[in-house]
């Protein structure tokens, strides 16, 4: 009889074991579904960013390859953002390449609308919305060209001369690669730590539901000559059946959970259900890793009987937890704080996540000591037998007593810690936005900037406001393959005052590039936003990044 046959026999016969297995399976199913959803989030944003990359790509890598002129602008209707891309084919150039979802390049006085914008135009008077996108509708932008099904986008064909001076030449409307969002990757890591650690402790606690009967069975096996590995195999088989079934159920639950998640807006837009599809290898890894961790937790939870037949030695009182356990908290706090500082400088998330895991684990190290101390208090201060009994039980085996509630303790501890940290992460990240939250900014035509600043400062002064308006230049930074985005030009003092970027220590009186995201390894070129000569940044231009940001392609 192999361990799986024995496990099946036990499950068939013992109702309590069956109940415990069902609870374990359900726990694993929920954990698997939630972890799959969490892990898919950065990939979903990447998928969404890649679909709409053609809307961001406003610069050509090689001027000689350019075949269209593009101008992007944002419009608003009832608070909803509308992305308008004006396009004009350059004469004498080959037909531009089109990304998936764009059936054709609109000619002058032709327009392609996203389905949501098309519906919005139909539902509202022409004068309010439709007139903003004049021209013959020659098709619909497909889902593959939209970041979300409800995104409002218009691709408007124009004559070349009509386009504003800010229009840029580009080689087609081809898609570009987008990186995984660092902030989401961090939040995903935090979420997994927050979710998995208490889940595993709870599953280990669930396996203790049947511990007495299981220990008796394992002791009988040990006395019959079963080796420790045979007993471990027996425990592992029993848990694997439950956890494996739970993982399969969890993966099956992934479909409805992904469908539901697609209705939750992020960054202003909802999702396509397919955005949450995980790469096959990753789904397989999750489906294997979570049950494996659960099996490990179950085996570790029963090591006493596994390695000591009859649990003979365990009948005697164990040693009291030592005070050194208290050191776990400051050590974990120092590692976590160092990780945060490191992330601020380098953007590396490994230390943050490691520190977070240490903080969570420190609760498990300190927990038995606190339990023992509380037991000691009860024993000294008891007035009723129930209190004395509780105190003795806590004092005699504080680890077991703590284990019984560790899952709930860890869930509450990590959950509240995560809620506290989320806002810090978000404010550290800055997402695609380089300015501090307190800075109000807008983009205007360069020639109007000084006049707008003068009028704004007049008004601020008139109303007695201490705030002050100023100007910042805007340029285009791009790589040779056309990826890139706009960047603001500031002196060191203004950069420190206005942006989230960590310029204070490294900004010197020479040109440098600071980005909220990792800068691409390829050489960068800089060009005026209104068009003009493109200049390569000299090799060795100082620069730094502030971590936890978003993908390359936003503001820098």
């Amino acid at each position, binding site marked *: *009889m192999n361990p799986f046959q*024995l496990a099946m*026999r*036990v499950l068939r*016969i*013992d109702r309590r074991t069956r109940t415990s297995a069902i609870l374990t399976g359900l726990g694993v199913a929920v954990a698997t579904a939630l972890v799959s959803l969490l892990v898919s989030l950065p990939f979903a944003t990447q998928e969404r960013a890649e679909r709409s990359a053609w809307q961001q790509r406003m610069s050509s890598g090689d001027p000689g390859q350019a075949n269209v002129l593009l101008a992007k602008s944002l419009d608003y209707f009832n608070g909803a953002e509308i992305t308008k891309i004006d396009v004009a084919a350059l004469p004498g150039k080959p037909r531009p390449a089109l990304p998936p979802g764009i059936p054709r390049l609109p000619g002058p006085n032709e327009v392609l609308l996203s389905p949501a914008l098309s519906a919005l135009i139909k539902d509202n008077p022409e004068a309010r919305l439709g007139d903003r996108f004049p021209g013959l509708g020659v098709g619909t932008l497909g889902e593959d060209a939209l970041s979300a099904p409800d995104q409002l986008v218009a691709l408007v064909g124009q004559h070349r001369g009509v386009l504003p001076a800010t229009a840029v030449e580009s080689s087609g409307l081809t898609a570009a690669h987008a990186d995984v969002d660092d902030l989401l990757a961090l939040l995903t890591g935090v979420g997994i730590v927050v979710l998995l650690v208490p889940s595993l402790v709870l599953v280990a606690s669930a396996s203790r539901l049947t511990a007495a*009967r299981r220990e*008796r*069975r394992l*002791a*009988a*096996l*040990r*006395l*019959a*000559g*079963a*080796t*420790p*590995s*045979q007993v471990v195999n027996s425990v592992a088989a029993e848990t694997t059946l439950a956890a494996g079934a739970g993982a399969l159920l969890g993966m099956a639950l992934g479909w409805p959970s992904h469908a539901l998640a697609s209705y939750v807006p992020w960054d202003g837009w909802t999702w396509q259900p397919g955005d949450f599809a995980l790469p096959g290898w990753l789904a397989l890894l999750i489906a294997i890793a979570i049950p494996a961790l659960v099996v490990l937790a179950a085996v570790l939870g029963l090591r006493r009987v596994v*390695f000591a*037949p*009859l649990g*003979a*030695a365990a009948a*005697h*009182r164990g040693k009291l937890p030592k005070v050194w356990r208290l050191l776990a908290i400051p050590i974990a706090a120092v590692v976590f704080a160092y990780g945060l500082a490191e992330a601020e400088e380098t953007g590396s998330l490994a230390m943050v996540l490691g520190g977070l895991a240490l903080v969570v684990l420190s609760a498990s190290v300190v927990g038995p000591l606190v339990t023992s101390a509380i037991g000691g208090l009860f024993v000294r201060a008891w007035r009723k037998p129930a209190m004395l009994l509780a105190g003795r039980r806590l004092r005699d085996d504080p680890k077991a007593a703590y284990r019984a509630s560790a899952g709930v303790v860890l869930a509450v501890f990590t959950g509240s810690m995560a809620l506290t940290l989320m806002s810090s992460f978000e404010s550290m990240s800055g997402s695609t936005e380089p300015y501090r939250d307190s800075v109000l900014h807008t983009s205007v035509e360069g020639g109007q900037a000084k006049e707008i600043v003068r009028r704004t400062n007049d008004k601020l002064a008139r109303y007695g406001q201490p705030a002050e308006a100023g100007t910042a230049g805007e340029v285009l930074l791009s790589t040779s393959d056309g990826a890139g985005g706009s960047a603001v030009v500031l002196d060191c003092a203004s950069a420190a005052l206005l942006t989230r970027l960590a310029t204070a220590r490294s900004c010197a009186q020479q040109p440098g590039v600071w980005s909220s995201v990792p800068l691409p390894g390829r050489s960068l070129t800089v060009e005026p936003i209104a068009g003009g000569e493109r200049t390569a940044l000299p090799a060795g231009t100082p620069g730094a990044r502030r971590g936890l940001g978003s993908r390359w392609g936003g503001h820098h």
Partner: protein
Amino acid sequence: MTHPLTAQPMLAGRGLIKRYGTEHALAGVDIDVAAGEATAIVGPSGSGKTSLLHVLAGILAPDAGQVFLAGQRIDQLSETKRSQLRQREFGFVFQSGLLVDELTAEENVALPTLLGGGRKADALRGAREWLGRLGLGGFASRRPGELSGGEAQRVAIARALSHRPKVIFADEPTGALDTKTGRDTMDALLVTARETGAAVLIVTHDRELADSLPRIVSIRDGLITSGVRAA
């Protein structure tokens, strides 16, 4: 009290010490058990009887001292090797029976052979034979929960003997049985052990049972106080 090894005993303990915290369960025990010999270990509660049994059987590791099986030292073996030794050379009968509740009587008896890698058909056939020898021929497919205390204990005896061990360890084997059932059960154990040539070491509070055995070892405060062999 030290017993010099005149002829090689089947099982021997030398200077065995076992501590639980500051308490000495065994304070330096020497003991020999000859092949085929049935020995009772008696003494008051907490005297160290069960600890001695567990140390000799390799269930507990001694803090000091040595255990020999047929002249080979076994106390330093790894847990896995000790498990394999228990599987091949030792049989156990405990007060609680310690049968696997989820297995039938014949499967319980076949367990040591199956765990040792024996063929299923052979193990089950052997188990049915042993159950038949102990008067349980009609109980092969019953689970422990469907057996009386005496029947379950005889199944445990069949399991202990099924792989023809060199030593059988019994800890209060009649403690949960009425007098007649206890006597019948012990008769079955001792007769069958004699047939197979196995040494039997029985920890018991039952003076009548101890007196029925050829040798009685008394233990108090972790030390052997007397070791009587019948003439």
